[in-house]
C-alpha cells in the first residue's frame, strides 16, 4: 500500500458515514440480460391521511415523468431502441422500480434510470397526466371493466378499515388523488427516496464493479433517516360473515373471502400453512380442493383458489409476485365469477371447503403429495434472474432467506401434525369479510340474511351421487351472523 492510498483511507475513516444502502446482487454470467430492482422502503401505507395515492403517484412521476435532463418523451426515445423501460409501483410497504435491459445497453440505460431516480423532472403537465391516469384507474377500470380486481380490492379495503394504513387501494382514493399537489410529490420524494431506505437489487449478466458504480451514482440521494413509523395493526377477527355487496350491472358474481392471519414469511408456521394452502387452492393449478370441487365437479366457474399472503397478481399470472412484503397478512379465497343464481351456493361451497380443512386436516398421504409438489413447484418460481432477485429482496424484509430457499429447507422437516396444528391454530376463523360484485344486491342481501338453503340446480346431466350428497350439505352450510352492506359501484374507492 503506498502513502497516498493510506492517506485516502484515513480520510475516509473521518468522513461522515454515508449510510450504505442495502444491496442484493445475484450475478448470472451466462445471461445476456441485466435486471434491476431498485426499492425504497416506503409504500402506500405511508400515504398521509387525505392524500391517499401519494406514494404511487410519486413512483409514477419518477418512472413516467422524465428527469431534469430529459423530458418523458425523450426518455421514451432513449429507451425505445433498447426495448427497455422502467416500471415503478408502490405496494403497501415498499416502492420498487423494475427494469430489464440487454447488457449491450446497460450503461446507457443505467444513466437514464439514475437521472430519473435522483433528479426527477416533476413537471406540472406530467403530474396532470399521471394523476388523471390514476383516477381513471379507480373510476373507470376498477369500477367499470374488471369485476375480479374490483372484488379483490373491495375485500382489502373492507378488511383493513379506513383508519388502517392498509385500508386503501395502492393507487389511492379519488378524493386523495384530487387533493395531492405537485409540491406534495416533491416533498414525499425528498423525504423518502433516501439512501437509508434504499435497497438496491441487481441480477443477471453483470459484475460487482457495475453494482459499485450504480451504488455510487445513487449517493446523490439524501442520506435520510430510518423509515417513518408505521402503525399497522392486524385487522380484528370477524365475528360472523361481514358481506359487502358492490352493486353494478354484472351477469356473473365475483367473490373474494378473507380473514386476517398472524403469520408472515418471518414465522415458522408460515411454511406449514403454505402446504395446507397448496392443498386447498394453489393459485392457477388444478391441484387445490377448491378448484377440483367447484370447477371440476360442478362447473361453477373458471377458477377457485386460496392464499395466505396478499394476492395481487392478475388471474393470468401463475407464480407469486415479488416485492410486496407486508408486516401483516391475511388469508383469502378467490372465487372467479359465478352465474348470479349460484352466488350463495358458491360462497357456501368455499366456506364448506375451508371448514372441512380446519376440522379434518390433511391425511398423511395428502400431506406427502402436497409437500412433494410444493418442493418441486416452488423452484419454478425463480426461473429468471429478475424473479430470483425479487424473492431474495423479500427475504431481506422478513429477515429470512428467499421463500423458495426457506421452503426447500423447511418442508422436508415438516410432519402432517405440524401442518394440521398450524391450520387449527391460524385458520380457525370466527368469521370472514366477504366481497361480492353483483347485480340485484337487495335480493342477494335477503337471501344471505334469511339463512335459507340455496340448493344448486344443474343445467347439465349426470352429476354423480357423491357430488349431489355433498351439494345437500353445502346448500345448508350455516351462514352465521350475517351482516350485509351494499355499496353502489360509483361510490367505491371515492375516499
Amino acid at each position, binding site marked *: 500500500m503506498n502513502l497516498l492510498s493510506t492517506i485516502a483511507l484515513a480520510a475516509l475513516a473521518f468522513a461522515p458515514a454515508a449510510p450504505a444502502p442495502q444491496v442484493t446482487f445475484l450475478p448470472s454470467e451466462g445471461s445476456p*440480460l441485466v435486471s434491476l430492482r431498485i426499492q425504497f422502503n416506503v409504500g402506500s401505507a405511508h400515504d398521509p391521511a387525505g392524500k391517499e395515492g401519494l406514494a404511487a403517484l410519486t413512483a409514477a412521476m419518477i418512472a413516467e415523468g422524465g428527469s431534469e435532463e430529459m423530458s418523458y418523451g425523450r426518455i421514451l426515445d*432513449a429507451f425505445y431502441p433498447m426495448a427497455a423501460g422502467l416500471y415503478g409501483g408502490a405496494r403497501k410497504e415498499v416502492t420498487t422500480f423494475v427494469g430489464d435491459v440487454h447488457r449491450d445497453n446497460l450503461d446507457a440505460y443505467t444513466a437514464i434510470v439514475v437521472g430519473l431516480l435522483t433528479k426527477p423532472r416533476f413537471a406540472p403537465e406530467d403530474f396532470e397526466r399521471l394523476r388523471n391516469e390514476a383516477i381513471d384507474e379507480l373510476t373507470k377500470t376498477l369500477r*367499470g371493466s*374488471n369485476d375480479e380486481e374490483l372484488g379483490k380490492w373491495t375485500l382489502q379495503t373492507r378488511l383493513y378499515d379506513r383508519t388502517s394504513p392498509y385500508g386503501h387501494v395502492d393507487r389511492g382514493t379519488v378524493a386523495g388523488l384530487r387533493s395531492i399537489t405537485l409540491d406534495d410529490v416533491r416533498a414525499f420524494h425528498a423525504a423518502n427516496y433516501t439512501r437509508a431506505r434504499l435497497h438496491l437489487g441487481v441480477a443477471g449478466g453483470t459484475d460487482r464493479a457495475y453494482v459499485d458504480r450504480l451504488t455510487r*451514482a445513487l449517493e446523490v440521494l439524501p442520506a435520510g433517516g430510518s423509515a417513518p413509523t408505521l402503525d399497522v395493526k392486524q385487522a380484528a377477527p370477524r365475528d360472523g360473515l361481514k358481506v359487502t355487496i358492490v352493486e353494478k350491472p354484472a351477469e356473473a358474481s365475483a367473490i373474494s373471502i378473507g380473514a386476517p392471519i398472524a403469520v408472515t414469511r418471518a414465522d415458522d408456521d408460515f411454511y406449514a400453512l403454505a402446504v395446507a394452502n397448496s392443498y386447498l387452492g394453489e393459485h392457477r393449478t388444478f391441484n387445490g380442493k377448491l378448484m377440483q370441487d367447484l370447477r371440476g365437479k360442478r362447473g361453477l366457474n373458471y377458477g377457485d383458489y386460496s392464499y395466505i399472503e396478499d394476492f395481487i397478481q392478475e388471474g393470468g399470472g401463475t407464480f407469486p409476485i415479488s416485492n410486496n412484503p407486508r408486516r401483516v397478512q391475511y388469508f383469502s379465497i378467490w372465487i*372467479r*365469477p359465478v352465474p348470479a343464481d349460484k352466488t350463495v351456493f358458491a360462497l357456501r361451497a368455499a366456506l364448506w371447503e375451508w371448514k372441512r380443512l380446519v376440522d379434518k386436516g390433511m391425511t398423511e398421504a395428502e400431506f406427502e403429495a402436497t409437500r412433494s409438489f410444493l418442493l418441486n413447484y416452488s423452484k419454478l418460481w425463480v426461473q429468471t434472474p429478475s424473479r430470483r432477485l425479487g424473492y431474495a429482496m423479500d427475504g431481506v424484509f422478513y429477515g429470512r432467506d428467499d421463500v423458495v430457499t426457506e421452503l426447500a429447507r423447511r418442508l422436508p422437516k415438516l410432519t402432517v401434525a405440524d401442518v394440521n396444528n398450524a391450520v387449527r391454530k391460524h385458520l380457525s376463523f370466527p368469521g370472514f369479510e366477504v366481497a361480492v360484485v353483483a347485480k340485484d344486491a337487495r335480493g342477494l342481501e335477503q337471501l344471505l340474511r334469511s339463512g335459507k338453503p340455496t340448493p344448486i340446480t344443474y343445467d347439465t346431466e349426470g352429476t354423480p351421487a357423491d357430488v349431489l350428497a355433498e351439494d345437500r350439505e353445502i346448500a345448508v352450510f350455516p351462514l352465521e351472523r350475517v351482516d350485509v352492506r351494499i355499496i353502489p359501484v360509483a361510490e367505491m374507492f371515492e375516499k
Partner: protein
Amino acid sequence: MRSVFSVILAGLAIGLAPAARGDAPVFPFRIESTTLPNGLRVLSIPFDSPGIIAYYTVVRTGSRNEVEEGLTGFAHFFEHMMFRGTKRYSAEAYNAALKSLGADSNAFTSDDLTCYHMTVPASALAKAVELEADRFQNLEYDEPAFQKEARAVLGEYNKSASSPYLLLNETMQEKAYTKHTYRHTTIGFLDDVKAMPTRYAYSKVFFDRWYRPENCTVIVAGDVKHAELVELAKKHYGAWKRGSNDVVIPEEPEQTSEREAKLGWPLPTLPIRYLGWHIPASSRNLADHAALGALAQAYFGATSPLYKSLVIEEQKVVTLGADAESKRDPGLFTILVRARSAADLPEIQARIDRTLADAATTPLDAAKLAAVKSHLRYAFAASLESADAVALAASYAIAVSDEPDGMNRLHEAYAALTPADLQRVAAKYFAKTNRTVVTLETTPAQSDKESNK
C-alpha cells in the same frame, strides 16, 4: 456529483442506442428435429436451465378451424377436455402424477393453435412423454364430465365479460370478417358457448379430426438430450395413427366498403375507438407483413409524433397502439385509442387518417427506422428468458408459419426494410373501403348520471 453514468448520458445520441447485433439470428437456439413415420414432429431446443424442461405439445388447430355453424369455441373447449383423463390415467390420476412432479401445467388456445405445456424437472422427461402420449391418443370422458367442463368454459367467458375489450374484440372480428372463421373470437360466440353441453357427439368428431400426429409438434426446451427424447417419443407416440380430413377454411373475400359498429357500455368508461384493416398473412407476403409491423411501431408506438402529441402533450388520449396481427391466415392491422372525452374522437380520427396518409407520401426518417428495428430485435431477445419462454416462442412460430424458427425469417425481413417499404404498405392497405371502425362509449343513461353527480 457527476457519475460515470451521467457522463455516458451526456454523450448518448437519443434515439440511437448501440445497434442491436444484427448478424446472429434473433432466435439463437439450435433446434434438433425428428419427424416420426406417423408424421409427429419432435423438437429439442437445448437451453441453459439446469434440471428443468418445458414440454410443449402444439396442435396446429385453433378457432380458425371451427367451420361448422353453431360450433364456434370448440377448439378452446377441447383444450379443457384434454384434462379429463384416459383409461390408464383418470383425470384425478393424471393430475396426481403432475402434482408429484411439481409441474406447472396448463394449456391455451388461440386462433391458430392449441398448446399444452408443462414445466417439470428434467428427470421427469420419461413420465412427461408417457402422460402426454397417452392423453393425445387415448382421451376418454363421459357426457356428464363433458357437460360440467362446458360450464367451466362459460365461467371463463363470464370472467372476461366485465371488460369492454371482450365486446370490442368480438365486434371487430364479426364485422371485419364475413366468411373466414376469424369472424369469431377464440372463446366463441356466447350462444354457442351456452349450447356446448349438448355437443358431446361432435366433440368426438373434433378429437378424431384434429388430434392427429401429423397436425402436432412436441417441443422440449431446456435441459434435454434429443436422442433420448426421440427414443421415448417413438415408444409412446409410435402407434398414433395419422388422420385425414377435408375441412376447407373459407377465404375472406375482399372488403369493398367501410364497416362500422357503435357499442354502449353500462358503466362509466373512457371512450374507445378500435380500427381494423385487412392485411396479408406473413406466409403469403412476408415483406409487407414486416413493413406493416414496423409501421405500427413508427407511427403509433410510444415514440411516434402522434403518441407524443396526443398522449403526452395534449393529453387527449390515454392509450394509443397499433398491431399488425401475425396469424396463419390474413389478419388485421389494428389501431386502438382510449380517449379522455368522446367529443375528441372525430379530431383524433382525423389525425390518425392524416398520419396514415403522410406515411404513404413522406419517407420515414432513417434513424427512426433503425430505432424500430433495434427495438423489435431487443424486445424479442428479452422475451427468451426461460426454457418455457423459448418453447412458447417456437410454438407461436409453428402456429403461424409451420416453422419453429419462423421468427428468424420475420426478423430478417424487418432488418431488410427501407423507408420506401413503409411508404408502399401505407399506400396499399389503408383505404377506407378496407376499414372497420368500432366505437365504444358509455351508454347515454350512464353518462347523464355521471355528469349530474
